[in-house]
């Protein structure tokens, strides 16, 4: 686990390679058994983390199939490879905290507890979707879970998150607002305006940069003059850490520390989670800008595989668990697809709903 206070580390590894080299000689099942360490208190927690990541992975794999079958359309941005970020960060948040997300947000939504059924129905554009079919893949919302989307403008959610944090503080609520964004957001003024405002006003804001190394199809060193993102965030006077975003437990621990610090009143915290998307930017993207070796190198540190390895080392009955979780998730997603297929489409007569809070807009 690498949780480094960036302000102290001079040589943060450049992210052209995985933040940490792939583990060689992963223990075989047999040798793990030979070691027979006793299951620990971590067993149940790790199983939950595994389930959380696997749900996202399998959900999105199904999305690929449904997209190819033209059941779902639009821009679909897959999160495969980045699951440790959504699941790890969410573990540190309570139901009262707020989350602001991006257009690559299926993982954040599912980790937040929005059901696969509600998300899938949204992908289908049905009334039972978590945004009533008005949002689609890029605009998932759930007010009851304080999940504020679903923003398709890079960095567009950052000011919004600062406002949620400001309001919570003005109302005397000790909540944290967590804002996810990608490395591409560092090129937008809104990141810097928000970082300045949040630090200036000491806002209870957790800034989570999912550094997956690419802003659409442009590599980090081709879109940023200074690629040490935590260093730049720290320059605003906030605590900033770089974390191995493929290690869900490292993400969880760093997030907990950050959230504790924020609740204690030490102002906004920044986490750079070094991760990688195994798939292209969107379903339309032919992915010509990355070489295979790079992708394979990161895949060798698949967050799900890493956790399974660790559970094996720990002596957890992971293979049996894995199969059980797989069955449960498969059934859940099957049900979600079935429900979406059956769900009603909104009649065009109500097209103008939700433009204003009035039943329909006066302008015709």
């Amino acid at each position: 686990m690498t949780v480094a206070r960036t302000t102290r580390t001079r040589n943060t590894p450049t992210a052209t390679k995985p933040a940490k080299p792939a583990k060689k000689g992963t223990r075989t099942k047999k040798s793990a058994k030979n070691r027979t360490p006793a299951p620990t208190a971590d067993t149940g927690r790790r199983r939950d983390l595994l389930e959380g990541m696997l749900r996202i992975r399998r959900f999105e794999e199904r999305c690929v199939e449904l997209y190819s079958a033209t059941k779902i359309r639009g821009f679909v941005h897959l999160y495969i490879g980045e699951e440790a970020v959504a699941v790890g960060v969410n573990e540190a948040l309570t139901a009262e905290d707020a989350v602001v997300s991006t257009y690559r947000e299926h993982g954040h939504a599912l980790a937040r507890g929005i059901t696969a059924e509600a998300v899938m129905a949204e992908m289908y554009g049905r009334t039972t979707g978590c945004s009533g079919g008005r949002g689609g893949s890029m605009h998932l919302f759930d007010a009851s879970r304080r999940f504020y989307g679903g923003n398709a403008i890079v960095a567009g959610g950052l000011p919004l998150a600062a406002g949620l944090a400001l309001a919570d503080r003005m109302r005397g609520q000790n909540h944290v607002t967590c804002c996810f964004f990608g490395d591409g957001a560092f090129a937008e003024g809104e990141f810097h305006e928000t970082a300045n405002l949040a630090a200036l006003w000491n806002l209870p804001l957790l800034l989570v940069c999912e550094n997956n190394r690419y802003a659409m199809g442009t590599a980090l060193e081709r879109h940023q003059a200074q690629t040490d993102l935590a260093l730049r965030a720290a320059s605003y006077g906030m605590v900033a850490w770089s974390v191995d975003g493929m290690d869900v437990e490292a993400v969880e621990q760093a997030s907990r520390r950050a959230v504790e610090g924020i609740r204690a009143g030490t102002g906004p915290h920044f986490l750079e989670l070094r991760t990688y998307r195994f798939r292209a930017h969107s379903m339309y993207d032919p992915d010509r800008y990355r070489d295979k070796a790079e992708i394979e190198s990161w895949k060798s540190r698949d967050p799900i595989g890493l956790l399974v390895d660790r559970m094996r080392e720990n002596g957890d009955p992971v293979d049996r668990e894995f199969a059980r979780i797989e069955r449960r998730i498969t059934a859940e997603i099957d049900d979600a697809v079935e429900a979406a297929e059956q769900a009603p489409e909104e009649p065009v007569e109500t097209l103008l709903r939700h433009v204003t809070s009035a039943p329909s807009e006066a302008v015709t």
Partner: protein
Amino acid sequence: MTSATTTAKTTYREALREALRESLRSDDRVFLMGEDVGRYGGCFGVSLGLLEEFGPERVRDTPLSESAFVGSGIGAALAGMRPIVEIMTVNFSLLALDQILNNAATLLHMSGGQLAVPLVIRMTTGAGRQLAAQHSHSLEGWYAHIPGVRVLAPATLEDARHMLAPALADPDPVLIFEHGSLYNVSGELDPRTAPADLDHAAIRRTGTDITLVTYGGSLPKTLAAADELAVDGISAEVIDLRTLRPLDTGALADSVARTHRAVVVDEAWRTGSLAAEVSARIAEDSFYDLDAPVERVCSAEVPMPYARRLEEAALPQTADVVAAARRAVD
């Protein structure tokens, strides 16, 4: 200044300030934020004294970061506050256009009705003070293009005083455009305390021969034009739109049905302007009532020049309105 219980001499600026004070007093969720609203007292002096009265949490100076503080207003509204965000001029609001259009106006719809944004954004608009091309434009018509927002243009002391409360009560985003040339306008403020009607245009002067349609900073010029026309025996009705979105098209049709002629006065550029929309509505709804083509008086199609003579030439003036009305009546 105290709350008016009897007719009192006041200015447009003071009327706006009194509205802010009343809102801050009556609802803990309301706070004002923007560039120089606190210590400085507002770029145009509107919020002078409010910091002392309500403190820096509720009268909040921001960095010059339009996108961040407008976006923060949206987030705060989502979380249950009632923010009033002040932007110095409409030109600067373009730096926050992403937040206004892609978030404030859109979140309710994208979320399937879950996330209303009860936010008020105030800003200055218009020319006439030799501030040149980056402080003088009239872009409120662009905002009136956007579904999901309400766009207000208070032109009178009464509207300056009484539009804010209903704007704050609106569950959706409301943009209020204050014309810079109006801040020093003074007069007797009607002592009524009822909120302004945000759904309907106002007839500021009744007439029978022609309808002059305008809003905001052009209202005084248009009323002056009506006075001049009256000297020639032309009875002009003056309609103040007040609300640019949603547009009160019924008021336009009713008036044109009586007068059969219309001139639209709008300080924005003519091409693609709100005046274009109003003209089109009159053509669509009142074509058979019209006895003459609809006339438009707008700004010259030029970035607003600094030089006084050129600025005056670029802007709609009373004489231009009079000339357009005469053309329509002849």
